[in-house]
């Protein structure tokens, strides 16, 4: 959708033409759902977030100033709504990241068993990497990430947004986004290595 078309849809919505919603839903609903599901990890919660986001779009379209792209605005509203939904559930599921991060010797080398340090499963057969078991390990590991870490991972690695756009969606600094992204990836890498390394 060209930006000019999107701007005209926004103008129509501002003027009370709810018919403009459908093309906007066609463009953004799947994206909103992916992000919402990525953060809430729950289909029913994600559906509620999608509904909330589009109602917010209708009610607050007058507050959308157009300086940022509509997509960025929608990402921000979605992220906030999904994190709020997740807030009540976090204590029972989320893990402490420190337990999964690499540790280092005084000389700067990684600590640990040599076979673990050398484990490179990246070239494993696709059937192993894409197996149901590996998928479940990965999904469980993503489920157990704290909400803000999971939000960054979904925004950056699933949605492919830039560090800057992710920072805007989350109301954080770019350095915070990069730090959280890196820690989230390291945790997942650790879990996958435990699962996939030989022996």
């Amino acid at each position, binding site marked *: 959708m060209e930006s000019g078309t999107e701007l005209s849809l926004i103008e129509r919505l501002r003027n009370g033409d*709810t018919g403009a*919603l*459908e093309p906007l*839903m066609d463009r953004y*609903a*799947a994206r909103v*759902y*992916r992000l919402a*599901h*990525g953060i809430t990890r729950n*289909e029913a919660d*994600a*559906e509620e977030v*999608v*509904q909330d986001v*589009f*109602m917010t779009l*209708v009610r607050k379209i007058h507050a959308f100033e157009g300086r940022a792209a509509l997509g960025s605005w929608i990402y921000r509203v979605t992220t906030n709504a999904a994190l709020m939904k997740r807030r009540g559930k976090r204590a029972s599921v989320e893990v402490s990241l420190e337990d999964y991060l*690499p540790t*280092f010797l005084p*000389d*700067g*080398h*990684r600590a640990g068993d040599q076979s673990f*340090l*050398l*484990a*490179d*499963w*990246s*070239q494993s057969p696709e059937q192993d*990497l894409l197996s149901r078991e*590996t*998928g479940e390990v*990965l*999904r469980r590991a*993503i489920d157990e990430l704290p909400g803000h870490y999971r939000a960054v*991972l*979904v925004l950056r*690695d*699933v949605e492919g947004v830039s*560090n800057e756009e992710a920072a805007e969606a989350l109301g954080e600094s770019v*350095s915070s986004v*990069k*730090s959280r*992204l*890196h820690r989230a*990836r*390291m945790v*997942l*890498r650790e879990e*996958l*290595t435990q699962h996939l390394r030989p022996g």
Partner: protein
Amino acid sequence: MNSSNTETQWRHGRMMCEDIIMDLLVDYLDQTLGDDLVQRLEAHLKICPPCMAYLETYKKTRDLAATAARPTMPDEMKVRLKEFLIARLREEK
């Protein structure tokens, strides 16, 4: 993580595994490290099999997570969304 501060910090120091894994990996994969740091990082990878293994598995983790966390919105949910919005907007008029 600020690339220009990182470059200043590592201009004179010896690059160790911890530096690469904890401080430089994200910027390296985002291709935002300066050329000098890239060269030093890649020189370290050539002589450090554990760091090379870490990098390759880290990249693969990123790729796998991108597809694992990518659910499709069911068609019936799209229909419900439209019906929901129409109904709510009618109520609010």
